[in-house]
């Protein structure tokens, strides 16, 4: 009986430790999924096991521990590595075509369809 209780307590502690650990790293996962791994392009920081990405995850954890919110962490990394590090591009003169092109194509397609319908 005593052994059972002992084993259960040990499992309880392992479980609670894992839970608190997971709660923190989930946040790191969430942020690192939105970051581009700059030395292994095509992968996010979350996916990569490169030295760069591993350090980046530690840094994100440190920033969370310091009480920084997501926005502050993204801004910090953008100031160090530029806009390229985040997967969500902002609208500026370099990316305006990226944002506007789908709209232009949509309007153009609409005109084509309208013409076809009106001719019939």
């Amino acid at each position, binding site marked *: 009986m005593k052994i059972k209780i002992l084993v259960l307590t040990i499992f309880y502690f392992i479980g609670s430790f894992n839970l608190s650990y997971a709660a923190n790293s989930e946040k790191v996962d969430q942020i690192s999924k939105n970051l581009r791994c*700059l*030395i292994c*392009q095509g992968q996010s920081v979350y996916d990569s096991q490169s*030295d*760069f990405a*591993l*350090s*980046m995850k*530690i*840094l994100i954890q*440190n920033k969370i521990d310091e009480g920084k919110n997501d926005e502050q962490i993204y801004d910090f990394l953008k*100031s*160090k*590595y*530029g806009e*390229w590090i985040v997967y969500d591009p902002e609208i500026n003169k370099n990316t305006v075509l990226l944002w506007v092109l789908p709209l232009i194509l949509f309007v*153009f397609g609409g005109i*084509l369809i309208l*013409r*076809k319908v009106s*001719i019939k």
Partner: protein
Amino acid sequence: MVKNIKLIAVVFLVIVSFFILLKGLNKTNNYSPNLNSSNIDFNFKAKFLYSNEETTLYELINDKDFSLINIWASWCLPCRDEHPYLLNLNSLGKLNIIGINYKDSEVNAKKFIKELGNPYSKIVVDPSGVNSIELGAYGVPETILINNNSKTILKKYIGPLDDKKLAELKMIIKNEN
């Protein structure tokens, strides 16, 4: 008429995509950030390799007009190749060369310096790689030239130093003086 518009549109799109792809061919895949946008946080904290004391970047770059921050590791082969260039730069006497030992073991780092010579005036360690990220670095080796007075980055090299970069560094220091 409708057929013509379609044809023109398709031909136009093909031509546009052709030129976009052609332009992309000549671009390198390696992205490096704009130097002017990357600022340095001088409150950066790190421990020395040869003592257990903690220091900040402010304290590290206090002497001479220029500082050269070099990120290195004993396990990094290109760092071995660039070491003679750092020794050469140190012999100029105008630079305060600071080494950041990246994700390395203390024993191996000290062995590396003993074997190849020490061009650094100070060496700090970065066992987790976090300090290097705070400097906006990608990995090893990486070299950053700083003007100590204006606290600005003058030049940044990703990858090992070579003859060309050495000449360029000497040129920048000469022109800035």
